[in-house]
């Protein structure tokens, strides 16, 4: 079988170009990888509550925290919220806290009314895109980050899962040690 060297050179150049773009694409994906990865310290943030108080995630160091990104217009969040209220009641005494970060673009009064209707007893914070970005972007809701007592992200997930799975994740973070030396960064 005769092989024309020119054809081979063209093929080699084409392959090199494909490899170059594939590698570049892989690198680009890596650069955009979420900042808030499991096993890493959760990015700190400071947000306002519905009643105007300022809350930082770092205020909760030593507690097991579920950062729950949600919105009033999100049906699955609406399903999940009463579960979170129940689980908060059940585990609060053990040092469990929920921070509900609302990604709504509406009047905080509407968010407050919604939270009141749902009997939410944990802090609801008015979300900002920068916080969502720090958590790798929140493309859809609900988005849950389970942070252990040392401030490390143990589990994270987007979309609705069952209440038992949420509870299992809460138990995992409650079982953690508050020693920050164990935390990665």
């Amino acid at each position: 079988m005769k092989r024309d060297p020119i054809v081979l050179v063209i093929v080699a150049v084409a392959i090199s170009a494909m490899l170059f773009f594939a590698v570049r694409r892989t690198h680009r994906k890596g650069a955009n990888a979420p900042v808030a990865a499991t096993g890493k310290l959760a990015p700190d943030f400071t947000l306002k509550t519905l009643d105007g108080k300022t809350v930082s995630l770092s205020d909760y160091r030593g507690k097991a925290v579920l950062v729950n990104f949600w919105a009033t217009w999100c049906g699955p969040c609406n399903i999940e919220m009463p579960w979170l209220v129940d689980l908060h009641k059940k585990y609060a005494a053990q040092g469990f806290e929920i921070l509900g970060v609302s990604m709504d673009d509406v009047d905080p009064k509407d968010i407050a009314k919604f939270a009141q209707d749902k009997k939410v007893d944990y802090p609801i914070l008015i979300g900002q895109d920068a916080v969502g970005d720090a958590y790798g972007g929140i493309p859809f809701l609900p988005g849950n980050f389970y942070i252990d007592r040392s401030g490390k992200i143990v589990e994270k997930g987007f979309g609705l899962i069952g209440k038992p799975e949420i509870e299992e994740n809460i138990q995992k973070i409650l079982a953690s040690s508050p020693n920050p030396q164990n935390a990665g960064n």
Partner: protein
Amino acid sequence: MVKPLTEKSSTKKSKTSALKFFTAASFRFSAIALTSAIFLLIGTKSSAQEGFGSKVPSVTLSAPAIPSIIRGTPGKAELHFHITPGFHINSNAPSEEYLIPTALRMDAPTDIVVGRIIYPAGQNITLPFAPDLKLNVYSGEFSVFVTVRPLSSVLPGKYALRGRLKYQACDKAACYPPKELPVDFEVKVAKSTHHVRHDPAQSPHIH
């Protein structure tokens, strides 16, 4: 006499074998590299697809037919929308007050009056974990009708109308932020087909 020829022949032979080796090696390299490149490309593509939420919902508008509407009378323009399979959007009358309804907002043109916008009835669905919660949604395809009435003074011809469809999409486990789709379409304004009959007897100009 024979020697140089043999030398020449051996040189030629070695050159040929070197070329053969080169081409064979190049071919092998090309084959390996091509296979690697294909796998690498497939790998990066599939890993991107595997990521949860890699499929993003969208609503698109089919090229609308241009309705012909007689000036001074109302007519309807049908706008046909498609939703990405696997997703739904709230209907215009969602079952819960906090849900964002699908709504078309039209820019107000000067000489064509935009009237009632007619939305289809939604379909009731339930989500996993909440069989009692019924959501009224659109999925697949749906049409919205826009009532338009060109003023009697409008010159016949094609007129562009612009608006935006606001929607908020979800799948069975997650919801995506509200979006707006630009909605542009045309209507053709025609003269009245009803001609006023002139009574020649009454006409001042009798030819």
